[in-house]
């Protein structure tokens, strides 16, 4: 029997996502955001979500729609505020959303730790700042570090350029960003890919996310211009 991770539509892709879950969402600014999957999650009606993403969305759709929906209890990110992040800004000002601000490198390194089975790591970033408050500080070889813990998720929503039926992925330019590390760090990795290629259609030297990290792939080839 053949391995086939391709599902027919967004509904099948996001099936099983439940209220209370922690969801990683790929993207940096407007590049690489899995907008169709995000709206699939909104359509599910689940609430009390924790979202892990670099930004908090701009405009009215995608991540911003999720932030404005009242379904997100908490966001873990490095840079929530941008021109157009009104949905998040309003929820934050009203005290309706919890923010865990994490330095950007720490954010992806914590994801990688979860992906790699690492129990924690000592980071030089944020030492001596408010973001190190309450964290263990340790001097190693003459330099101070803070202890950072793994950041995992129940689900990762990832946008990719091409995928095959095993779930091998390649990305497009700077839209790669957090996709590969989020794909590794979640229990269930769901991908929207602009193109599906036959098995063997991706160069094995150039595959960025090997299939072992991917659970479901949905083909989304529309070129809708999202308000993000």
């Amino acid at each position, binding site marked *: 029997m053949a391995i086939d991770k391709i599902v027919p539509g967004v509904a099948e892709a996001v099936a099983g996502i439940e209220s209370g879950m922690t969801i990683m969402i790929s993207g940096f600014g407007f590049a690489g955001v899995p907008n169709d999957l995000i709206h699939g999650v909104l359509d599910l009606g689940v609430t009390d979500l924790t979202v892990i993403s670099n930004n908090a969305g701009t405009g009215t759709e995608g991540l911003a729609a999720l932030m404005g929906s009242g379904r997100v209890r908490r966001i873990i990110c490095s840079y929530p505020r941008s021109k157009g992040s009104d949905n998040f800004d309003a929820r934050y000002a009203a005290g309706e959303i919890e923010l865990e601000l994490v330095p950007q490198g720490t954010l992806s390194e914590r994801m990688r730790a979860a992906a790699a*089975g690492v129990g924690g790591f000592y980071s030089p970033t944020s030492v001596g700042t408010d973001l190190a408050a309450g964290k263990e500080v340790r001097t190693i070889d003459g330099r101070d570090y803070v202890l950072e813990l793994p950041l995992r998720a129940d689900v990762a929503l990832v946008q990719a350029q091409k995928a095959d039926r095993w779930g091998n992925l390649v990305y497009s330019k700077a839209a790669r960003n957090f996709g590969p590390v989020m794909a590794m760090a979640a229990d269930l990795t769901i991908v929207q890919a602009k193109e599906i290629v036959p098995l*063997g259609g991706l160069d094995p030297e150039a595959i960025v996310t090997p299939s*072992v990290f991917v659970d479901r792939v949905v083909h989304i080839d529309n070129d809708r211009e999202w308000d993000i």
Partner: protein
Amino acid sequence: MSATMTADAFTRLSRRQLAWCAAQAIPDGSYVNLGIGVPTLCANVMPADREIVLHSENGVLGFGPAPAAGEEDRDLINASKEFITMKPGGAYFVHTDAFVMIRGGHLDLALLGAFEVSGQGDLANWTTGDRRFPPGVGGAMDLAVGAKAVWVLTEHTTKKGEPKIVDTCKYPLTAPKVVRKIFTDLAEIDVTPSGLVVRAMVEGLTLPALQALTEPKLTLADDCRVLSAPAA
């Protein structure tokens, strides 16, 4: 009762047959690491009707059997440094990512060799402690703690006929309590919370005869099968 006394009643599997038996037990769609030794032989005897994705710790996923003579590529080898081939859907990656897959719990199964396995699933396969020979741990400790399940593939006894499945490992451990299943040239044995359960034995072998070659107490599964494989 000694190994010699029962030697005529049954035939041990060859290494290739042992690998074949283990390979047939791998669920369809699994991602599986093949360790050094007997496990790497499995790539040559995988069931044709399943898609099983093979992983090697030197940065290869989705490899196939050994190449035909003359088709070897010196850049394409497995963890045992044997030549392999690549299947469509396979990928190459840096060694570090190979171990993200291993330690991060992304592989369904690791097949490993063993010097000794205990009745509790303790594994010893990296050093005999003999100072005359350098030890070699390779990826064994990572695989033992990182794969979702660990099966051991090994001869049932040492060259001297002594049990390799023991009450307590006398060699230094690779990892404690990790082995779930043992394939030997005589039997397929599950490591369960209530002890070792024999799921299959080679034709003509009896439980007492197998027990004589095994330290921990063995229990026969109700549906114990005959362990057999095509002639190599």
